[in-house]
């Protein structure tokens, strides 16, 4: 089952919604989340959720430098949706 999840992401020929993937593999959504997190821990998949959060925080504290309007952070921040993709074979 774990391999099916990894292969589904690796061999997808279009972007997938997590719910759609759950239906396609006939796996409960919460179980699918667990399996994805397993592959993320193994370094085979990358989960953007934490990185996206960091992007907003960095922008609020360092990125805008003098133009940041204070604790509200960036002039324009947007909550990024969570995305899971295949990890690059080796970091650049």
């Amino acid at each position, binding site marked *: 089952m774990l391999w099916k999840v990894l292969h589904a992401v690796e061999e997808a020929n279009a*972007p997938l919604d997590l719910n759609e993937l759950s239906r396609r593999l006939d796996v409960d959504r919460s179980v699918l989340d667990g399996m994805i997190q397993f592959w993320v821990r193994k370094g085979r998949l990358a989960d953007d959720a934490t990185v996206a959060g960091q992007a907003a925080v960095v922008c609020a504290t360092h990125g805008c430098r003098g*133009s940041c309007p204070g604790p509200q952070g960036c002039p324009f921040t947007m909550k990024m949706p969570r995305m899971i993709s295949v990890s690059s074979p080796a970091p650049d």
Partner: protein
Amino acid sequence: MTVITRGPMQRPVYFAYGADIEEAIGLLSAAIQAAPLVAEAYDQRWLAIQLLEGDQSLREKVSLYPDAQPVVDALAVSRGRLQQLYGDDVDVALVDHRYEFVHRLVREAVVQTRGRYVSKSDKIDRIVTHPVFGIPIFLALMWVVFKVTIDLSAPFLDWIAGVLDGPITNWTVALLSVVGLGGSWVESLAVDGVIAGVGGVLVFVPVMAALYLVLAVLEDCGYLARAAMVMDRVMRKVGLQGKSFLPMVVGFGCSVPAIYATRTLESQRDRVLTGLLVPFMSCSARLPVYVLFAAIFFPQYASLAIFAMYLLGIAIAMIVGLLLNHTLFKSDEPSFFVMELPPYRLPMVRNVWRQMWNRTSSFLHNAWTIILVVSIVLWFLLAIPVRGATSSFADVPVDDSLFGALSSAIAPAFAPLGFGSWQASGSLLTGFVAKEVVIATMAQVYQVDLPAEAATPPTTFSEDIGFIATSFVQATVDTVKSIPLMIGINLFETEDAAKPTTLMQTVRVDFDQTSGGHGALAGLAFMVFVLLYTPCMVAVVAVKHELGTKWMWVSVLGQLAIAWLVAFIIFQGGKLLLG
């Protein structure tokens, strides 16, 4: 709908891994049992499984026991056997068995009372993220965004302009007269520098608020996240994935967080390529320039002209991306991704208001910091004489001022684009700091030398307050009237079009002169130049921070070259076509 039914307990459920794994667990468990100190500390089966899965910290703890050596030896033998079967993925095999077991258990215990459940969000997504219909729907929604933004905000734009030109200017002049500074250079600094500069930008606060309102609605209802899926096919043409489009969507608001958002991308190649393309997305700070120029040169088609700027930004980003993908950034087809799409929901008023307020207040903050400073610096540059023997500080024809001289030096570079006056060039020069400053500069350089307008009778304080209140009510009424007009329904009598302001008239005259009578083409070329050149200094710092100094220079110089080239093609090409 999933329903768990409760039935009689038939049999206890035991979980067993496959024969090969159970054999390895058995071998290791036996070794653990034979080591009394280890066996006393841990459950044998649990420990065997953890060690086979490769739990290093546990292995180190166990190896500290005096009788642990046989366990360590047995672990090496057991793992070695499993590695012959599963390679380096022994842990995957173990975890996979557990998931298989849970899945089988759920299958047996859970009864699906209905067929496969398809939510309302899924049904909407079948249309909205459809490979064919998705992109036209995305473009249509963008059109609605800019139509609503412009039409809703226009009456309030006139209201703020009226308040700044009337009561605020009157009160400032009166206050300075009371303290004995009437008619001095301080009055000129306050009225021609601060009020004209900062006020010229504050006029556009309703436009920004309306844009942020509509974007917040789209964001809160869950649509914006879908843009990445919709645009995936287009992004693939330039060697990127739809994921790269999300920083670009953020770029419609502000380039700075958009550049920082590129760090969500996995590969350095994608980060650099996306970071180079993000500044072509038209950020909200450019909107006031479009609104002003569209009102001057394309009053009947203002929304269309502004929408075209946003589309052009996307198109240029795609073309540049395509070129880079086939030259500097050659790579294999990027892989696809899985995305957690939030369910569609009705936007919450509190969320929408908070988003709109945060973004508008930061725009206001910019007006009171960067734009105020630039306006004051600009006023001094306009007040310092560098030519003309009779000129003195704050009493100098603008052409002879330091800013006039600096701007005149770069003006010839813009002559082939149709806007080679020092005023237009100077506005682009200060626009490097922030795009809002373009309007602030124009408000100062085009109005400094204007002849005094026909004197208006002096007003009292209470009359000014009355004017502010009544004109606000009128603006609100006009906004309400504009709502049915957006969908082509005219419920009210046609009113005269808004009168062009003095700034609009002088810009029109200047562009007509510098372009040889092709003012509209020059205006369009100016809008395109503003769209494509460096967004602001903070964005340059962000690119340096994220991509390094080399790419920062590539970004700045590349955007300047592309902006000049596209504006040149539009102006000169347009002239050829129009004859």
